[in-house]
């Protein structure tokens, strides 16, 4: 069953805000506290918010298991792909070959603080995004499965 209109409206308004904040945490993982896991967990909490505020029937259109499941596998494939990138370049698995290479994400940075330079740190931002996508999908799908066990209408 759904919660009251106030909670629903609040959830609708907070949902994109939490998502954008989570994405902010994800992409700033190498500059500020946070990263893939934390940001992914924050976004998954947004999904938890929508899940709790609406009824099963309404939620079915907003968040979908299949999408989350695909996200999860996609994130992991992206992550392991970022590792294989090193393998393809002739370095060992998980080598950070992009760092300091001058390519995309590969700016060379001076020591000391450098806020706002997102395109640094080599494969770390890529991995952050991959892990963020994966954790987002994973935690949300755990919640959805558990919700389907509460005996209400099936999700």
């Amino acid at each position: 069953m759904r919660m009251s209109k106030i909670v629903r409206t609040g959830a609708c308004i907070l949902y994109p805000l939490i998502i954008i904040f989570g994405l902010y945490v994800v992409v700033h993982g190498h500059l500020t506290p946070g990263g893939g896991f934390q940001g992914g967990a924050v976004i998954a909490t947004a999904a938890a918010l929508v899940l709790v505020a609406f009824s099963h029937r309404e939620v079915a259109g907003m968040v979908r298991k299949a999408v989350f499941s695909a996200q999860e596998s996609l994130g992991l494939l992206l992550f392991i792909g970022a590792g294989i990138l090193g393998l393809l370049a002739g370095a060992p698995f998980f080598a950070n070959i992009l760092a300091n290479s001058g390519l995309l994400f590969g700016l060379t940075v001076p020591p000391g603080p450098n806020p706002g330079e997102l395109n640094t740190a080599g494969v770390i931002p890529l991995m952050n995004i991959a892990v963020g996508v994966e954790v987002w999908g994973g935690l949300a799908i755990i919640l959805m499965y558990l919700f389907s066990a509460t005996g209400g209408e099936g999700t």
Partner: protein
Amino acid sequence: MKKVLVAAIFLVWAAGLCILPLLLSFGNPAATDMDTYFLRNGQAAAAANNIVTSVVFDFRGFDTLGESVVLFTAVTGVALMFRARKEGEEHEDE
């Protein structure tokens, strides 16, 4: 009898764990060479301001892969628990 045994077990555990605050000094790690390496090289090698992130994704990236896979495994396990059952699937009991 059993209660005495449980109490004894807990006593030994408590005594064993009390070694920690007695022997490990808080706020003053005994050796720091590995972490000094990370702090010194983290920003230059991985170009990340956040040394924790550079440890998580660069120096110990393989652990992080394992950790993501743990989450994936748990999700798969949960999905296995709440899967839809086929009609006439054989039952296995005791």
